[in-house]
């Protein structure tokens, strides 16, 4: 029952955010600031995640595929898995841990120190001032980060597959081109945008309704990461079932 109530409240926050999207003033400065925070500052962690995921995936599939002489398909398998699943999902989970948690902590602190009340008192709507820029930035930046993760991941797979395991470079690349369609990548990016919406909305929601001082901020942060991660994985299943 509590879960249902919470889902309803998050949806309400989504509706409010969407309504504010249509109403000026649009605070581009705040949006850019959040884009930098969510996007640019998540670049390192995205690159590391992508590279190692691509690498280990090449390693694992090689062991399996070499049993029946299908080593040539390692590249395309890695690329498909990254574009459709691992790129968007792992990127979103990493950004949830980095930025979603920070959103909950920042808004939570603002709540318990009455800064959110101060916004209301100064006739500035906190959903428009705090939540909207974070949600917009996340929806825009997650697909971009996913592109980076996909690309770096394939590079990682290439390094492991071609340089360490000795797969022919030409075949590795040719099979990727043969089997990976632009739609695979686009659908992955669409997922990433949805995951960006989930992680920012949940992070902001948990922060916005924080109560109970420093302990409350800690609780909000933890709950935001757990709830957003689980929701992303569940949404991934639903989106995949619908799209592919």
């Amino acid at each position, binding site marked *: 029952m509590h879960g249902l109530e919470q889902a309803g409240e998050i949806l309400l926050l989504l509706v409010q955010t969407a309504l504010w999207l249509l109403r000026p003033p649009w605070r581009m400065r705040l949006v850019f600031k959040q884009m930098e925070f969510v996007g640019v500052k998540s670049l390192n962690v995205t690159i590391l995640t992508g590279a190692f995921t691509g690498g280990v995936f090449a390693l694992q599939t090689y062991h399996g595929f070499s049993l029946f002489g299908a080593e040539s398909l390692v590249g395309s398998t890695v690329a498909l898995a990254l574009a459709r699943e691992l790129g968007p999902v792992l990127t979103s989970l990493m950004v949830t841990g980095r930025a979603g948690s920070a959103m909950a902590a920042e808004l939570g602190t603002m709540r318990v120190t009455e800064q959110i009340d101060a916004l209301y*008192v*100064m006739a500035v709507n906190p959903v428009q001032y705090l939540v909207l820029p974070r949600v917009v930035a996340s929806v825009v930046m997650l697909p971009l980060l996913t592109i980076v993760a996909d690309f770096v991941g394939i590079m990682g797979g290439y390094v492991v597959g071609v340089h360490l395991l000795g797969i022919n470079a030409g075949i590795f690349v040719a099979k990727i081109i043969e089997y990976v369609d632009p739609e695979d990548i686009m659908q992955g990016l669409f997922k990433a945008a949805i995951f960006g919406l989930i992680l920012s909305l949940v992070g902001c929601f948990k922060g916005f309704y924080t109560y109970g001082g420093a302990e409350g901020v800690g609780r909000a942060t933890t709950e935001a990461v757990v709830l957003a991660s689980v929701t992303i994985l569940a949404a991934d299943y639903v989106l995949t079932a619908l799209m592919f």
Partner: protein
Amino acid sequence: MAQPEAIIELRDIHKSFGAQKVLDGLSLLVPRGRITVIIGRSGGGKSVILKHMIGLIKPDRGQVLVDGQDIRPLDDREINQLRKRFGMLFQDAALFDSMTVFENVAFPLREHSRFNEKKIREVVEEKLGLVGLTGHGDKMPSQLSGGMRKRAGLARAIALEPEIILFDEPTTGLDPLMTDAINRLIKNTQAKLGITAVVISHDIQGAFQVAHQIAMLHQGRIIASGSPEAIRDSDDAVVQQFIHGRAEGPIEVL
């Protein structure tokens, strides 16, 4: 003495948080252009009264009237119009900790005035000067002492020169000298700008120093209200116990 016109009127306000009844049929008139100090015990719901006045909290029952208009049915836009007439100093100042002191004071101006950057700078410097913080504009709130934060919060609250300023425990936790300085600041600001001020306090000495009207909150109601002299001479045992700070009396302390 003729009763001055009320700018804010609370009528029979009831408010509970969960099972705890905080306000129980509270009524209060806030006269225009005067300083009203609400005294009462910590945790007695004094802040809740202020938050009702500005629509941050809605009453379970009862009415909040500003200039005779009930604020409950107002929509977002109307309540924002109303809030622009208010300034509020929060208990811990509630400065935005991601901004400098200057940006904090400039915030309401950037949001709600059409001033250009030069004019904004001028107004902010003037307000910072008024609260004795000239030259501290570039600091972050975390670099300020408690008293300085309160003064910065006050500068932000008066930036748009509102008609009504609400002070939530402006002197709590300050040393006696800073307490006196803040009390003078409230008195001078009010006298200079002719505004209406509502001050929440349990600093009795300060209350008698600044107030035109004192109202005493006890068990969710205003049990006495009047001029400082009237309160001092009140024959209500509760009021007498509170203003003399005695542990024994009709109020159960422990």
